[in-house]
Structures are given as structure tokens and as C-alpha cells.
């Protein structure tokens, strides 16, 4: 009985927070646009009973999904989102790894403080933190004033409303998700391995590549997925910091939903996005599982 409860709980979680919302979106993606409240015609009517369900399957035409293939906007937006997510993940790794490394090698009594500092930004609303970047990056912003004041630049830099600002925003926002798993992998590492390598004549840099990096691999992979997956569907950061040329699927979805009032096509875009996201999520799960088996 306890065993059953233990299994049932995660599945109930999955059902309530993933499957039910997904089915609602899927159902909307199969209906037709209408000027009413809500703005689509339900094509699945349970009140009609069995006849309603049969009528639904007879009328199934996936026209909203077909529509996505008729316009190159959609696949371009998916590809562009994947590209931005990949680059942003790589940048976050470059910034996050040295921080995690430094934390793991810091004296024991410092570590809780350092950990606290990484988590501290979460105490402020995400939206406010992204907004404050607008104040830092704008033409008349703090960064430009600082650089102009130092005499490093003579003309203010245009950073806000460019892809650079989007990358800065993503790296800043998701950095803790990269640092924490890498830190936890590095912290568990046995320091005597490095001492042994040194005794056997291995240079410190080589030892880092041959020992530290492979042993923190699980942390790197976990961190990358934690950054990559939410970044693909990111909407807030590109719309606040990015310019008009930053094409991301989150924005396309917003336009279908708000500008066209076309909930069915918006639903179809969301379903396809989810299918694209499932691939990295499954890979992530398998990696985690393999790791657990290795650790026995």
C-alpha cells in the first residue's frame, strides 16, 4: 500500500501539472477560430455523449497544424529559438563553470556564504531584475555612463534592443541553474585524485582536463539542460531586452494568441514546441537515470 502511494504521487503530479494542461491545449489546437467567449468553437462536445466524440473524430482535420507548414515563419522561429538557446547555454556554461569551480575550491567556512550569494537574486522578482537590466544597458544607462566616464569609449554603445542584450539577460537569469549542479558535482570530487596526478607528473592544466572536467560532466549536462529547456520558450527576456529582429517562438506564440486572437493556431504552435522540447527532456532524464545506476 505504501509502495502504491509512493508511485501514485509522482504520477498524480505529472497528470495534474502536465497531462491535463497539455490535453486542454491539444483540444484547443484542434478547434476552429470564432468571435465569441471563448474565441473558438469547441469541436469536442462531451455533453453529446458518444455521438459527440464520434463526430469529433470524423471532423478531425489537423488544419491548424497543416497551416503551420504553409508559412516559413514558424519553422524559422523554432530554429532561431534553438540557436539562441544553444548559444546562451554555451555562454552560461563559460561564465558559470569558473564560478562553480571557485566555490568548490573555497575554504569550507566560506561555502555557505558563497552559496547564499548565488541564490540571493531569487529573492527579487525575476521581472524586476530583467527590467533593471534595461536601466543598465540603455544608451543613457549606467553601463554607458560608466564606460564614458572612464574614457574607454567616446560614443555610447547600443546594447539594449539587440541580440547581445538578450544573451546578457539569459546568462544573468539562468546562471544559478548552471552553477548549482556543477558546484555539487565538483564538491563531491575526491581531491586526492588531483594530488595523485601531480605526483605522477601531470601538469595542473592537464589534470583539470583529464580529471576535473570528466568528473563534473554530470553537473555540466544537468546545468546545460536546466538552462537550455526554459530558454527555448523564453518570452519575457527577448520582449524586454531584445529588438524587433530577435525572432523567438515565444513571441510568435504571443502574436497568434493576442494579435490574431487565433487560439487554435496558438495551441498548435504550443503543441509543436512541446514536442520539440520533449527530445532534450527525455535525453536529460536518461542521463540522470544512467548516473543513478552508475552510482548504484
Amino acid at each position, binding site marked *: 500500500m505504501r509502495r502504491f502511494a509512493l508511485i501514485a504521487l509522482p504520477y498524480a503530479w505529472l497528470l495534474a501539472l502536465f497531462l491535463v494542461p497539455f490535453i486542454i491545449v491539444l483540444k484547443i489546437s484542434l478547434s476552429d*477560430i470564432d*468571435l*465569441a*467567449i*471563448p*474565441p473558438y468553437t469547441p469541436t469536442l462536445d462531451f455533453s453529446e455523449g458518444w455521438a459527440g466524440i464520434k463526430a469529433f473524430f470524423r471532423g478531425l482535420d489537423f488544419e491548424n497544424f497543416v497551416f503551420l507548414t504553409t*508559412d*516559413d*515563419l514558424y519553422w*524559422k*522561429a523554432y530554429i532561431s529559438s534553438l540557436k539562441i538557446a544553444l548559444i546562451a547555454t554555451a555562454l552560461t556554461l563559460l561564465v558559470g563553470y569558473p564560478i562553480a569551480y571557485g566555490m568548490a575550491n573555497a575554504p569550507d567556512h566560506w561555502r555557505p556564504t558563497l552559496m547564499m550569494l548565488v541564490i540571493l537574486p531569487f529573492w527579487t522578482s525575476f521581472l524586476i531584475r530583467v527590467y533593471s537590466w534595461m536601466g543598465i544597458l*540603455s*544608451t*543613457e544607462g549606467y553601463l554607458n555612463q560608466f564606460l564614458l566616464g572612464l574614457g574607454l569609449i567616446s560614443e555610447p554603445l*547600443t546594447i539594449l*534592443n539587440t541580440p547581445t542584450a538578450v544573451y546578457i539577460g539569459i546568462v544573468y537569469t539562468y546562471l544559478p541553474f548552471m552553477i548549482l549542479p556543477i558546484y555539487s558535482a565538483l564538491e563531491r570530487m575526491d581531491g586526492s585524485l588531483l594530488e595523485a596526478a601531480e605526483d605522477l607528473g601531470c601538469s595542473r592544466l592537464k589534470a583539470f582536463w583529464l580529471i576535473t572536467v570528466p568528473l563534473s560532466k554530470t553537473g555540466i549536462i544537468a546545468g546545460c539542460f536546466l538552462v537550455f529547456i526554459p530558454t527555448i520558450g523564453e518570452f519575457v527576456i527577448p520582449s524586454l531586452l531584445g*529588438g*524587433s*529582429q*530577435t*525572432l523567438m517562438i515565444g513571441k*510568435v506564440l504571443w*502574436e497568434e*494568441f*493576442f*494579435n*490574431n*486572437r*487565433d487560439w487554435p493556431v496558438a495551441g498548435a504552435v504550443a503543441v509543436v514546441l512541446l514536442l520539440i522540447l520533449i527530445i532534450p527532456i527525455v535525453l536529460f532524464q536518461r542521463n540522470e537515470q544512467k548516473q543513478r545506476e552508475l552510482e548504484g
Partner: protein
Amino acid sequence: MRHLIMTTTAALALGAITASAEEVRVYNWSDYIDEALLEKFETETGLDLIYDVFDSNEVLETKMLAGGSGYDVVVPSGTFLQRQITAGAFQKLDMDKLPNHANMWDVVSSRTEQYDPDNAYSINYMWGTTGIGANVGKVKELLGEDAPLDSLELVLNPENMKKLGECGVHFLDAPAEMIPMVLKYIGEDPDSHDPEVIAKAEPIFMAIRPYIQKFHSSEYINGLANGDICVAVGWSGDILQARDRAAEADNGVEIVYHAAKEGAQMWFDQMAIPIDAPNPDGAHVFLNFIMDAQNMAAASNYVYYANGNKASQEYLVEDVIGDPAIYPDAATLDNLFTTTPYPAKVQRVVTRLWTKIKSGT
């Protein structure tokens, strides 16, 4: 610390008591009211006012069509109002509860009838034009003394935009206003619903889009006022607010607004009560409060938009009633045009074109 906890608990307890008073929830455009009026409303009526803001008709419409927004008063613009009335999103006003309705101005209400026949569902809050705001100093520095500040040439001619691009140009993220503006510029019917005519706006935008820094419907107020950007295609009162903020900050920025001489769009923001409003009686109290001559004048004096309230005009300051950018003279009024809502199929064409214009894809 203990002191802090005790204060918080006290505040929570207090909140629980006041929450039991009757509430009116209003959803209005951002930067669109004198906040002192909100307090005045609470003191005068004893109702609790919850006041939220938005900056795009699309966001409001999505909330309306989803239903259950929880708001008692919302403020869509004319074309959006018309479509939402068709969808059944609003309830008819009870004129018996709105004695101040007699204050309304026939010049405006005769025009809003095209969106809301007999003005049965809505009252006019404010109206204005869509035009060009410019930082006079910077624009003249880049284009010379005879820069066409009052013409669409300024923002739609690539030669000018090439030079202006470096100091920052914003356009409204509102296709239903930007596309009619371009159609007017090339001599087509701005209210055209013909996809082939609408498509003619594309090459004009494609030639200038590299020089447009951002499409956004509210950032330009601060941008213009701080000197971050030097030109914005935006709403009249918003640009005039930027002008005043710059003057107050005394930062050397001088902003000027023009409704383009080629013709500019005139729009109306209408207050209406959602069909599922939790407190329709409170909503009527709010509408009646807004239609009070002095209250309406206070709002216009604060946000620099004209209103649809005739009785309020004697309380308007000269800066507002005497400014042709706010209350246009008869000749300018003739040069203004209005538009009607796009049907769903045409809307898709317009949105797609807009996405292409914004993203290049």
C-alpha cells in the same frame, strides 16, 4: 525583527478588514489618469478601487474573450470595442444610474456611434490622434533646420530614417494603426480591408525597418523624455506627457508632437462594463464619477488627452483646450480619419505582415 513581523501581521489583519468593503476593479491604459482622482473616488464613494493598467488593446481583448477577467470597467479603443460587442463581451449601460451622461459631447459621441450604435455599451473616456513625436534639437542636428517634423516624410522616407536611425526611432507596436498610416502616406484608403492594398505597405516598411530600433507602445514616453530616443510614432497625449516630463527634468530635451499633415488617425478609448463584471453597480458609480465635469477635466489636464465631455471644457487649462495638438481646430479635424475592425481573415494577413515587418521574416 520581531517588530517587523508584528507590523506585517497588523498590516495583514488590516488588509483583511478593508477587503470586506465593496470593490470596483478598473482596467485602464497605463499613464492615463491623474492618480489623485483614484483616491478622490474612494473617499467620495466609500468603494475600494482596484486599478490595473495595460498598454495594448490586444492584451485587453484576449482577457475579454477568455471571459472571467474579474474587471468591472475596461477601456478598449473603438474598433476593438466594436468587435468585443459582437462577441458578447459587454453589458448595456443603465442610463438611469448615469445622470452625468448629460455632460457628454455630441461631436465625439456622434463619431463613436460607428463602433457602438446609440452608444449603448460605452462612454467615451478620451480620444486622440496617432502622430509623430520628435526631439527637436537632435532631429534638426541630423536633418538640418528644415526637417519635416510635421510630415510622414520624417519617419517613412528612408533617406531621413537612415540619418535618424542612429539616435533611436520607436514605432507603436499596433499594426491596426501603423498600416493605415502608411496606406495614407501612399495615397491609398487607410481603412482598406483588401489584402492586396494592405500588402502595398510592406515595401515602405521594409525600406525603413533597419533604422527602427523598437516597436513598442509605451516605452517611448520615457525614451523621448530622457533623450534615449529622438523620434517616436505614438499617441498624442503620451508624446505630450514626454514633452512635459522633459521640461520638468530640465534636461535640455525639447519634444514636439504633430498629427501628420498628410492625415492622421483619430481614435477613441471607450469605457465599458464586461458582461460578467462582479460589481456592475460599482462600475456604474465609477463611470458616473468619471463623467463628472470637474473630474474629467482633472484627468485631461493631467494626461494631455482630449475627452468626450462637453461640460468639462470650462475646467480645462489653456495648455490643454488651447493646444491644437490636443483639441484640433476644424481644419485639422477634417484631415483626421478613422478605421473599422478587420475581419479575422484580414487580421491574419495584417498580423503576418506586421511580424514580417518587425522581424524581417
